[in-house]
């Protein structure tokens, strides 16, 4: 490594200031030169010197995916006898310091990537604490490669490269909603693959809501009777496959059951969860069975969803069914609770159940707004209603995830990418200790008007704009989004080449292209 560094002519750049540097999201620090290397035909992975033995094949698979995305389906058929042998890059040498490949909140995702400018049998180097850092390094490497259509070789321009990178936030999420519309398994896998390109690392799976209950719950096997149809369902084995697929790509899956407000579909299989047949939501707070079901679900979850957190929802609870239903009204009276007290009781009891299964809890912000001081100290408050919430949450000493709907709700089709880019999770939070309580942020793809036919272009490229906000060092972020238009357009075209249906940047929010033209200008 030392030799390589010495041979650099040091030209230190920070992304947004530099023309022609097309990496998204922008790494922490970037040095590069002005030469070209060509990827060898038998571009190889080696990992001698690593403590990590890759028994599960995470690294091997990631390398094979890397080759696919840099070929972007072109026929690579170069004649290497025409190239300077000193300009051939023979592979990537990966060094992973940790043997542990458990993926968990806060896992070290940093990496160093260096690519030499010449030499015999030279390799690029990626060095990282964990294999997940290496995955990010490989993503960055893939963005430095371009297929040259004239000489049919894959080129790395601007060598030598020396990149040091790490995320600004540990939680960089995307919400998908499989209740309003069922998303087939290949679609979810495609979304996971596309997240890795933008270095997002949490798939928040809003599995169940009012409209449908698609997931199998072994403890309560009638729950998925609430699915839209017999085929629009996931077995728990499917869920495990999603979790494993994501984990092998460095992405954690945060499972959500949104209680008590968004749970009408639960009652299709178990009608006694409804206050009554005519008043079906929120879940019946008065019955022990309600909490038994929640316990069963979270018990089943804990075997498959291994992320530290579980999301318990808690938003938009309209308690009128509780007061309108005689047996619940009676129960409220007996327990001396008004409806807001019962809402608090429900949320806190659900929290305790989650804690008993080893989870920390995420709840939507209404729970904090209504009874923040009562929440478990292990609660992470998930902002959505608007700006200004995060500062109150961290002032109260709780952790927070930022998703203010005016900027980071992808189902707001008229929300432009510039707004996604400029939304700053640490707004008005200056105290360093409080800043640390902001875990990160999340863009939300609610599914009312989105299904398998248009989810990709509704997510991308706007989620990528937020992804840079969540990954890149604050000082590297553009103060004016127009400065990054070209680089983001380039990333959007890269997504297109990799088969992701990312929408044009030009236009108000998510739109179809207005007229014929190059991808890079739209």
């Amino acid at each position, binding site marked *: 490594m030392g030799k390589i560094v010495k041979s650099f002519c040091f030209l230190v750049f920070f992304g947004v200031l530099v023309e022609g540097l097309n990496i998204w999201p922008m790494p922490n620090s970037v040095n590069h030169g002005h030469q070209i290397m060509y990827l060898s035909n038998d571009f190889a992975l080696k990992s001698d010197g690593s403590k990590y033995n890759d028994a599960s094949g995470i690294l091997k698979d990631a390398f094979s995916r890397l080759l696919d995305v840099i070929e972007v389906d072109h026929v690579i058929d170069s004649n290497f006898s025409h190239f300077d042998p000193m300009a051939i890059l023979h592979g990537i040498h990966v060094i992973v310091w940790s043997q542990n490949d458990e993926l968990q909140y806060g896992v070290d995702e940093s990496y160093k990537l260096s690519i030499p400018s010449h030499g015999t049998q030279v390799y690029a180097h990626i060095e990282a604490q964990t294999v997940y850092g290496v995955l990010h390094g490989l993503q960055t490497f893939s963005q430095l490669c371009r297929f040259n259509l004239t000489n049919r070789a894959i080129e790395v321009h601007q060598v030598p490269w020396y990149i040091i990178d790490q995320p600004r936030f540990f939680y960089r999420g995307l919400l998908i909603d499989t209740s309003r519309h069922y998303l087939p398994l*290949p679609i979810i896998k495609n979304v996971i693959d596309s997240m890795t390109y933008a270095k997002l690392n949490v798939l928040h799976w809003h599995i169940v809501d009012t409209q449908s209950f698609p997931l199998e719950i072994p403890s309560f096997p009638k729950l998925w009777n609430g699915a839209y149809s017999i085929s629009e369902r996931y077995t728990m084995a499917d869920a495990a496959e999603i979790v494993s697929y994501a984990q092998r790509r460095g992405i954690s899956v945060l499972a959500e059951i949104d209680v008590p407000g968004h749970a009408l579909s639960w009652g299709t299989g178990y009608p006694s969860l409804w206050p009554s047949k005519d008043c079906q939501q929120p879940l019946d707070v008065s019955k022990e069975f309600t909490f038994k079901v929640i316990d069963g679900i979270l018990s089943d979850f804990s075997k498959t969803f291994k992320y530290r957190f579980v999301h318990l929802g808690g938003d938009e609870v309209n308690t009128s069914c509780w007061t309108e239903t005689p047996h619940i009204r009676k129960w409220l009276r007996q327990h001396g609770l008004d409806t807001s007290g019962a809402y608090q009781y429900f949320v806190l009891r659900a929290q305790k159940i989650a804690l008993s299964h080893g989870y920390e809890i995420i709840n939507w912000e209404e729970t904090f707004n209504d009874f923040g001081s009562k929440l478990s100290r292990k609660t992470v408050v998930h902002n959505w209603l608007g700006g200004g919430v995060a500062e109150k949450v961290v002032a109260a000493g709780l952790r927070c995830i930022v998703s203010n709907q005016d900027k980071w709700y992808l189902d707001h089709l008229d929300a432009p990418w510039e707004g996604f880019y400029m939304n700053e999770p640490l707004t008005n939070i200056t105290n360093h200790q409080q800043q640390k309580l902001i875990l990160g942020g999340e863009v939300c793809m609610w599914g009312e008007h989105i299904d398998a036919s248009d989810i990709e272009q509704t997510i991308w490229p706007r989620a990528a704009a937020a992804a840079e906000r969540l990954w890149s060092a604050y000082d590297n972020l553009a103060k004016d989004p127009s400065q990054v238009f070209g680089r983001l357009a380039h990333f959007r075209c890269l997504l297109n080449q990799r088969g992701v249906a990312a929408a044009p940047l030009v236009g108000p929010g998510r739109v*179809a292209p207005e007229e*014929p033209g190059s991808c890079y200008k739209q």
Partner: protein
Amino acid sequence: MFSLVAAVTWNGSQRQRHSSCRHHSSDPHQLYIPNCTRSSSDFFSCKFMAVPYHSSSFVFVFTLICALGVSLGFNSTSDLDDSLVYLWPLPSEFTFGEDVLAVDPDLSLAVGGDGGNSDIVREAFLRYRGIIFKHSTRFSKFRGRSMYDISKIRIIVHSDSEVLQLGVDESYSLLVAKNDDHSIIGEATIEANTVYGALRGLETFSQLCAFDYGTKTVQVYNAPWYIQDKPRFVYRGLMLDTSRHYLPIDVIKHVIESMSYAKLNVLHWHIIDEQSFPLEVPTYPKLWKGAYTKWERYTVEDAYDIVKTGKVKKNAFSRQFCFLVHISLVCLDLKLRQNESCSSFMAGINVMAEIDIPGHAESWGTGYPDLWPSPSCREPLDVSKEFTFDMVSGILTAYGASSAIVSKDHPLAYVLASYCKDMRKIFPFELFHLGGDEVNTDCWNSTPHVQQWLQDHNMTPKEAYQYFVLRAQEIAISKNWAPVNWEETFNTFATNLNPRTVIHNWLGPGVCPKAVAKGFRCIYSNQGVWYLDHLDVPWDGFYNAEPLEGINSASEQELVLGGEVCMWSEVADTSNVLQTIWPRAAAAAGMQ
């Protein structure tokens, strides 16, 4: 733009009603309707019976048959009904029963016949196995108990010819039945004359398979199935336009793969238009300077790779799948199959290339400005220059006379030459589209040297248009291509067109009847019903279109090769092309 998604949704019951009661007619005076009878205690038999087609009796017959369908269990409920026939497009003949068969996740392949041992069959089998087993079957209740009814799929292909051309036999029969006393292992059997018929049979088989969430196995409902199927038309096309917006290779392959699900069989590749010229032409290496950017291009190897495929997109699925079942040898083999012959199409889909001349060719002049009448008046191509026709000829040849020169400058030429000498080999389909639509000859009139040429040759601009088209046709024919031209050429100078011309309808209804009356072949793409870029045309508009409308004699009907839905890309790119194509293209596929 995106509202079309809502506009074209339907529920399962409607879909079924259409598929079971829709006429499948090769004669417009007849309706072919499924006549389902309960032939024994557990068999339904459906045949498409010819029924006289008179407007007065149509409604009656239609109603009657639908009523019959309802009485047989085709009733609509809000839930999906297991007893319905969920096949699209609906096969021409089928019978089914009431058994439920479990399919072994380790489904294996057995082949027979002279053509059974084909890579195309083997690869298709692997592809479809990935499609059929999308859900995890790890917890199948049958797992390890060898209780599966279907453990093997037997594919018998009679012909060992893998030539894919217009009219190739795509028929197949498919039998899915429980093992009887004679055999221990249950099988599904596909029998076809060609590998391409076998591919269609595999597609149908995959649609019979459904994951059952109760047993966590893949099941075939309503077995035993006996299906005999063949397409009504030999040409079932979809057009893609890579000039208005460049489509990455991955996306084109994805579209090809999706076409195979609806049994479409021709990808009409409108490669070039006035906006951009994305394809490499080795004989004229400056042509692709007309691309939008240096990244938005296709090399000739890419074109070859796309055509050869019909090959299937290398998606994560099949790779992961390969890994899972430890057939790495096979996967490796697939990766190394660069040397196969140009004519082997893995998905049974022909690619028809188009250069749209002389009207839609402004981008040609970016690299060769001489092709423009003048720098200020750039379209149509300059009819007065021999260079223009040299260029057309060069494109249709690619590695022709000048390949020696090319190989000197181009390290790859020798590699390419070894498997694909020229454009004719890259696009082996017998049809080549020469466009010829929307030719505005103003530039010819307003450019002095072209005007002079017209005078010297005693031609009006309209005659020059004819001269251009006919000359281009001759070039294509000399390369053994049959030319396809948009209908304006027929509308303007029908009698002079080469008799091998295929007329491509688009402006409106009633053109194919005129074309076939004059003995030309015809492809139906009436823009009012089959243009996918018309976002407000709902799927039933696509479904109700009839390529044979107004054509009565059997001999004239034969001249209608089929139809094509057109995905013009002015306002469609990678981000929305798939949902603009589907499901409306499937509705048209159902008619074909």
